[in-house]
């Protein structure tokens, strides 16, 4: 199946053009001199300068990063635990409910998740701010982490863990010395996924944030409702650049790790 017909070439070209041209236009016009975002008036980086002086945006960016780091770290710990319980936990009371609660947030409309969490926070009298956004983001992103980690746990050879236990490791040591290094790539991609989900989220953050904590998406959304602005284009370009560099680096690193693992396996096979 490797002969590309003209139809394949055309559909790939048009498809990727559709995916990338809107973002390219956005990036190009962030360097536009004019405030009119649809008319080119010469190259300038002045919108980046103005962005750097916009306190409100900078504060919101700081809050967003703080929330994302805290919630993704917490979600990674809880999600890995949940995945371990699901794959290795055996039978326990309420297992069906547990797996239902892990999968349900993945398909839940954000407006419902946001509304229900807000009503909870109000019900128990918790002031809305950074803490409530972190709790909300942790809850939905731990489910994504647990799906990513459990898909790795399912495929890996259980006898390795059993060997460690036979050789005198405690279960905790076996997890730390054997299981964790093997599932580490999945745990890291789970963290990255949780981090971007948190950075991106507008709807749930809008419901669960208070006046004391505004995240970047909330700020962007309220600015964008009034129309297109070159400052938002500049901000978007920075965010696109960060994501692009991040994704490419991550894929290179994981590729190298895979190559190294294969080499080690081959070396191990030779020595035995």
């Amino acid at each position, binding site marked *: *199946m*490797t*002969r*590309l017909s003209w*139809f*394949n070439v055309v*559909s*790939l070209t048009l*498809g*990727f053009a*559709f*995916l*990338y041209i*809107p*973002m390219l*236009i956005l990036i190009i016009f962030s360097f536009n001199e004019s405030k009119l*975002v*649809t008319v080119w008036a010469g190259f300038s980086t002045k919108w980046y300068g103005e962005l750097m002086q916009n306190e409100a945006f900078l504060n919101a960016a700081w809050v967003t990063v703080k929330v994302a780091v805290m919630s993704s770290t917490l979600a990674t710990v*809880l*999600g890995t635990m949940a995945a371990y*319980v699901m794959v290795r*936990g055996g039978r326990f009371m*309420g297992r069906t409910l*547990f797996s239902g*609660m892990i999968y349900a*947030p993945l*398909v839940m*409309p*954000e*407006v*419902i998740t946001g*509304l*229900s*969490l807000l*009503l*909870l926070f109000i019900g128990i009298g918790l002031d809305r701010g950074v803490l409530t956004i972190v*709790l*909300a983001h*942790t*809850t939905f992103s731990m489910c994504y982490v*647990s799906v990513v980690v459990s898909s790795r746990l399912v495929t890996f050879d259980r006898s390795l863990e059993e060997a460690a236990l036979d050789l005198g490791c405690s*279960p905790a040591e076996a997890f730390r010395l054997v299981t964790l290094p093997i599932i580490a790539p999945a745990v890291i991609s789970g963290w990255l996924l949780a981090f971007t989900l948190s*950075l*991106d989220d507008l*709807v749930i953050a809008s*419901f669960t944030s208070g006046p004391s904590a505004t995240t970047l*998406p909330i700020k*962007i*959304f309220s600015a*964008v*409702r009034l*129309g297109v602005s070159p400052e*938002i*284009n500049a901000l978007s370009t920075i*965010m*696109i650049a960060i*994501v692009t560099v*991040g994704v*490419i680096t991550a*894929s290179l690193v994981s590729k190298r790790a895979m190559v190294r693992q294969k080499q080690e396996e081959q070396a191990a096979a030779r020595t035995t």
Partner: protein
Amino acid sequence: MRRAVLIAIPYAWLLALFLVPFGIVLKISLSDTAIAIPPYVPTLDLAEGWAGFRAFLSELDFENFVWLTEDDLYWKAYLSSLKIALISTIFTLLVGYPMAYGMARAPEEWRPTLMMLVILPFWTSFLIRVYAWMGILSNEGFLNQALLWLGVIGEPLALLNTNTAVYIGIVYTYLPFMILPIYAALDRLDGSLIEAAEDLGCSRLQAFWLVTIPLSRPGIIAGSFLVFIPVLGEFVIPSLLGGSGTLMIGKVLWEEFFSNRDWPVASAVAVVLLLILVIPIVLFQRNQQKQAEAEQ
């Protein structure tokens, strides 16, 4: 003992922050609006004990759900969400399938790059990708400029703040969700089956229709649900690209809550949306399970 703790921590977290909040939504959907803090009655007063709980229960009713059927805004919004979700799923499939098919037929060494090109937009902020279309679709936007310059149209088309813009936005943002499962299904497909079909006298088009499409069906179903389910409750796209005529239930819920501050009705809207979603979610789960069994 340790195992119990390991189970208990994530379990308790999900119970407290996922299941209990739903109980609260359900309860408030049965309450009445009031000018108070919080803006609904009754509120449960545990200090009064069992009698207080009975009095609380007796005040709950289905008034808000009756209201949803009486005011035609709501059922029109549900219907229009279903319609928009269905049509945009079909469009996403029509754009996504040829791309996935092209990727699966591309030379082996290109595939990781093509995959990356599909995944990259998925990691980029959703809000920014929707915003990018605002500048393209507006009256003096790039699309109108290009069409005017080409002489296709005499005057700018009104695209932004219409349902057309919403469809474009949905297809654009949800395309990776459609491509990836279809590509995964096509990638596993055994090429010799198609050769066999062609040897037995099928034309290439017939082989595609009779062999490739049926074998990629699990991918098509998975991709369609991955688009349909989240689009049904979509809020960002209709509020940025849609106009006053675009009715979607996610937007109605948002406005009911933030603008009208009618929490009981917003909760009732959420409960009904959830009931509608149960059907596609169950169908999706069944498809995934069947696929997992087929792989074993």
